[in-house]
């Protein structure tokens, strides 16, 4: 790891700003945390002193010092963490799963933060992964979100496929017995996949969040730093662009007439079958070759 130009004066200033002395945190430990944080942020680059200074000033220094002190096993810091952040963790768990299913995750996370495992005689606390680029509360919630998602995904992979006669098995609608309709639905799906692939990342992200993850406009706006109305407007624009791309694909590449194009759209209204938007959005390497990029 290349050495970053953090001078002593900067270290002391950050140390004081963080109130690290409150937890009797060793300054060397805090310096190591600053280095780790900056290394993560700048990757392999070595920033200039001013840029590095600005970055360090942007850190949630108090939370970083608290995390360092907890990781080092300082009792006062841990007591403070329990008092201030354990409720945050539990509230987050309850927000994720109001039935209480995520509480177990919160409890296991709590144990990992404390550092029940050891390596070479040193406690391995999860706090070592906190770098102060966010608040400690947000980081805790993100860790919980990550664990929740991974647990769900792992559970999904283990679920058996439904039997053909089971109610959950999706029966092909009667309309699909018409081979043209089946072909039309497939064409629209191909066109949609290509249209989605041609979107700018931000537009694709917006569509995924709204349709795939069912986030609200406000939540998407918070994520992307946009007003709700802007999110709504951009969604409408992107949807229109997708539609036009799909139409162009159906006409130009599939060689369909206008009437057939209309039948295609009508077909998907009736039943387009199970569609994995995320699969479409995470399609393979033959993307980025579709038509216009009308995301502006």
């Amino acid at each position, binding site marked *: 790891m290349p050495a970053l130009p953090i001078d002593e004066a900067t270290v002391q200033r950050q140390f004081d700003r963080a109130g690290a002395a409150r937890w009797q945190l060793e300054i060397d430990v805090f310096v190591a945390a600053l280095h780790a944080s900056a290394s993560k942020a700048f990757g392999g680059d070595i920033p200039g002193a001013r840029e590095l200074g600005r970055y360090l000033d942007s850190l949630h220094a108090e939370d970083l010092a608290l995390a360092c002190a907890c990781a080092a096993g300082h009792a006062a810091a841990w007591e403070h963490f329990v008092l201030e952040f354990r409720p945050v963790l539990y509230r987050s768990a309850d927000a994720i799963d109001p039935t209480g299913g995520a509480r177990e995750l919160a409890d296991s996370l709590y144990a990992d933060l404390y550092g029940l495992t050891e390596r070479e005689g040193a406690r391995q606390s999860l706090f070592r992964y906190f770098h102060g680029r966010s608040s400690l509360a*947000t980081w805790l919630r993100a860790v919980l979100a990550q664990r929740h998602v991974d647990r769900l995904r792992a559970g999904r992979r283990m679920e058996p496929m439904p039997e053909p006669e089971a109610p959950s098995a999706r029966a092909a609608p009667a309309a699909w017995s018409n081979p043209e309709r089946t072909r039309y639905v497939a064409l629209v799906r191909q066109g949609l996949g290509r249209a989605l692939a041609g979107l700018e990342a931000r537009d694709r992200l917006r569509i995924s969040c709204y349709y795939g993850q069912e986030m609200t406009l406000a939540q998407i706006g918070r994520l992307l730093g946009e007003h709700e109305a802007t999110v709504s407007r951009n969604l409408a624009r992107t949807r229109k662009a997708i539609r036009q791309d799909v139409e162009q694909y159906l006409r130009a590449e599939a060689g369909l007439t206008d009437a057939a194009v209309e039948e295609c759209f009508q077909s998907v209204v009736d039943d387009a079958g199970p569609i994995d938007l995320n699969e479409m959005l995470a399609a393979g390497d033959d993307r980025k070759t579709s038509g216009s990029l009308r995301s502006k």
Partner: protein
Amino acid sequence: MMASGDKDRSLEHLLRQASAAGPAPSGLGPCLDAEALAAWADEGLSPRALAMAEAHVSECARCQAMVAVLMKQPPVQAADAHRSWKWSLGWLVPLGAGVAAVSLWFAVPQRTTPIDSSRPFSRARIETPSAQAPASPPSTLADRVQPVPPQAAVGAERAASADARSKPVNELAKAEASNALRRDESVSGARPAEETPRRGALASQDALGRLAAEPSAVSAAASPLAAPAAAAERDRAFRQDAADARQVASPDPSVRWRIGAGGSVEVSSNGGGSWQTQASGVTADLTAGSAPAPSVCWVVGRGGTVLRTDDSGRTWLRVAFPRAVDLVGVQAIDGVTATVTASDGRVFRTTDAGRTWQ
């Protein structure tokens, strides 16, 4: 021939059928770790890192799911609270005294009925018009619906006893919430205007969380009133819905409605001093309302939900709506004429109480 709008709706139908399940992450580099995800949420990523994160997440089902789980939670501003708490520490005592004095000045003449004892916490907070009117679509609720503002500055509300740290966390949390709720009542007439209503309203839930989680070592000038722990817990749960509650004012300032998640509708006939629950008959989240008369109110919500009352909410009628889209705005002229705005910007108008829509 299919109109463009019909094709758009077909496409939307197609997009909505998509499931949330997805394949393994794409080949766009490693997934975001929790630290990067949190940094993104707290605007701690550099522009370059942000662009890379957006590009990856736009194609990665796993990361999209993580982002969604995180962003669906009300935003936490614990760090900001810490910072504001630190700089406002020295001002807490005189500020608290000043707020209490001003609140008494404003609160006493307005209160004509006692606070509803079944709800020790009164939602009779300051209504603050949105400071950030949406640019589009035009026919939204900006001048009708006023979002519930967030709690007052954290520093002004914090007033724990000096021995707070010795209390068990749960008991402390309840006591803090109770104290905050009581102080909330007393300052309801003097709450400062909200600056970022949309974000702030959602943050109010976590403002409560901060109050519950953060003991203060400073005694406030306003001594809190005691409240039973059970009532405090009930109020805490009740107020967790407050972030999404919206108030709908009528031409009569004493009559207003309050709508929120899960089809929640309440009415007040004393300017918000007390509220009575009304049966909306729906469970969809309600997002906007418009009351052109004290007895007439239109309310809209997710999934094409449109409700209307002509008798001050004694009965709410579900109005048939042609599209199952999320509705975000309504402006009503009277009991038969209203304009509704969908989340995708489309506008629908009725002049026959919702029997037909154009």
